[in-house]
């Protein structure tokens, strides 16, 4: 019961102190606003940076996800040391037969497709269209998660005997003004008629990593394309699960090193890059930027805090007689301490609130810039909590000294103060 009463008394005093503090702050509006500028700038910048990062992260992760998190890209790469550092690119190029038997030897890899790419202009009647022609193997549909909607995938015969067949997307069909059901019709690619065997789902890629999204895609069997372009190729593998992607990558590295008969110690002449790895790297980078931004903001909050301390010391000095009177009529030292501490905290919280509003303004501004690709930027709830938490902390830390000074004033001296 006594404990309850004491707590009730404390809550009353706290509420009283909050109102008192708001009154004091209101009475000195101009000064209070100026005092909180440090806090305002600190909170505004931290929330804007966090919001922008959140937006960037959402975009990048969505891009990665659309690329497929269990994918591993394999391409030739010139090492910067070892015997191959001066090798000709032609000699380092991946070759189709280097991948023979890969699935048997790499148990963590579920699918692999060799890929060749070229671009050309397709003409149908009056229509001309820039297209990206991609030579694929049937596993590509599983890896890219893009299936054939009407018609069929490439058959074994299409693949092995390099038949002139192709798959197109709906938008390519529409831009070429082909019939709605164009399966069975022919289009000319590289001077040769290719029969359309099916319609493939469009790419879901967008944003930062959306390579080739400006041109339309036409898919042909890998070997068909190698007939016109036998230089550069790469491969995409899929691990059995996103967690197994590092393991699959290691298996592929080992496999290709064996194929190329690289000696231990010699660097790879190709690269295997797992998407998961990019995601991890990006997350690390995002965390780093957040930390750096946090550090900068910490400094501005420190400066803001010193401003708060300064103004509170002025306030204590100006109100010495008031403190003396309050003590004379029965205020305990703890009540005076609380009064000034709450005032400092309220100042900081008001600064935090204003800062948050500016941060939101900045976020909306950034999100509205089309090139910035930050349309998903927003201030996450934890950042709001963090801002207020830090503001309150600054208030406690920098308000404590002036509050203690006020609480320790001798009432007799204070009442004599001019």
């Amino acid at each position: 019961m006594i404990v309850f009463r004491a707590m009730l008394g404390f809550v009353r005093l706290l509420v009283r102190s909050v109102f008192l503090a708001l009154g004091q702050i209101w009475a000195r509006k101009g000064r209070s606003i100026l005092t909180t500028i440090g806090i305002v700038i600190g909170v505004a910048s931290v929330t804007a940076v966090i919001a922008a990062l959140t937006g960037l992260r959402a975009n990048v992760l969505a891009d990665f996800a659309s690329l497929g998190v269990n994918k591993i890209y394999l391409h030739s790469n010139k090492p910067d040391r070892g015997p191959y550092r001066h090798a000709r690119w032609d000699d380092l190029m991946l070759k189709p037969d280097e991948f023979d038997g890969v699935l048997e030897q790499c148990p963590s890899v579920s699918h692999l497709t060799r890929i060749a790419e070229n671009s050309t202009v397709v003409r149908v009647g009056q229509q001309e269209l820039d297209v990206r022609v991609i030579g694929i193997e049937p596993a590509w549909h599983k890896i890219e998660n893009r299936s054939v909607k009407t018609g069929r995938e490439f058959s074994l015969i299409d693949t092995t005997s390099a038949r002139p067949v192709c798959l197109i997307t709906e938008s390519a069909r529409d831009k070429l003004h082909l019939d709605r059901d164009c399966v069975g019709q022919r289009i000319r690619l590289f001077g040769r008629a290719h029969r359309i065997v099916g319609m493939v789902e469009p790419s879901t890629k967008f944003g930062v990593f959306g390579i080739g999204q400006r041109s339309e895609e036409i898919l042909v069997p890998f070997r068909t394309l190698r007939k016109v372009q036998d230089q550069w190729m790469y491969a995409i593998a899929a691990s059995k699960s996103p967690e197994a992607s590092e393991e699959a990558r290691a298996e592929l590295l080992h496999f290709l090193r064996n194929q190329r008969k690289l000696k231990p110690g010699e660097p790879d002449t190709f690269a295997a890059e797992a998407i998961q790895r990019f995601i991890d790297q990006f997350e690390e980078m995002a965390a780093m930027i957040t930390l750096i931004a946090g550090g900068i903001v910490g400094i501005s909050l420190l400066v803001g805090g010193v401003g708060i301390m300064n103004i509170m010391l002025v306030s204590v000095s100006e109100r010495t007689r008031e403190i003396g009177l309050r003590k004379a009529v029965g205020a305990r030292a703890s009540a005076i301490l609380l009064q000034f501490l709450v005032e400092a905290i309220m100042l900081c919280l008001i600064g935090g609130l204003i800062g948050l509003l500016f941060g939101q303004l900045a976020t909306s501004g950034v999100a509205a810039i089309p090139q910035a690709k930050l349309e998903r930027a927003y201030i996450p709830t934890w950042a709001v909590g963090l801002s207020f938490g830090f503001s309150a902390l600054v208030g406690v830390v920098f308000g404590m000294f002036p509050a203690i000074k006020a609480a320790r004033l001798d009432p007799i001296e204070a009442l004599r103060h001019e």
Partner: protein
Amino acid sequence: MMIELEDIAKVYKVGVEKIRALDGVSLSIDENEYLAVMGPSGSGKSTLMNILGCLDRPTSGTYQLDGQLVSRMGGGGLARVRNRRIGFVFQSFELLPRLSAAKNVALPLIYSGIGWLGRRRRARDVLGRVGLGGRMRHRPSQLSGGEKQRVAIARALISDPRILLADEPTGNLDSKTSAEILALFDELHRGGQTIVMVTHEEEVARHARRVLRMRDGRISSDERVEKAGDQPAPAEGGEA
């Protein structure tokens, strides 16, 4: 006895020098006394007031208030005593300029944990008692000097204190207003209030029923003034 001071000494250190502001003061004050403390500056009357008002602790000696030994209390205990049992009236009123008369008056109640409604009701009552029932919402800057001191007296009375301590309460007022304030003190005294007042004006001290004169930290004389009625004192007082 309501107040018992025994052999109170207060020593201040100024550099290496020690100043005995009070040097063995013993004093009893009974309920409903009206005491004036007089003396030249430096005689120790302010120090005595501060100790009586629990704003300061004696270096040695004991102070009992209502049988409670306050001379050994800690800061929190003294704050409580000031809050519940002592009312202060200052020479320069000490009103908070941004608060209305009612809020100024209710200030001590904040520290006794009384709610908003209770504070307002008691502030209205006590402002009525000092004749300022119609001035509840006025700021100090909208009040005359006499009205300000009435507000200050109302604030001192709001906790029904055992003693009212007034330090030169008419020092900042003209003679007409002073007379009104002293009449108010007389009225409060008639109503049973114990009053201790520091003054250096004989005119003012004549209102009291007991006059204490101090010199060099000691009590030099302690006279009781018998009065026929309850009228403000005529100029004849002075018998022991």
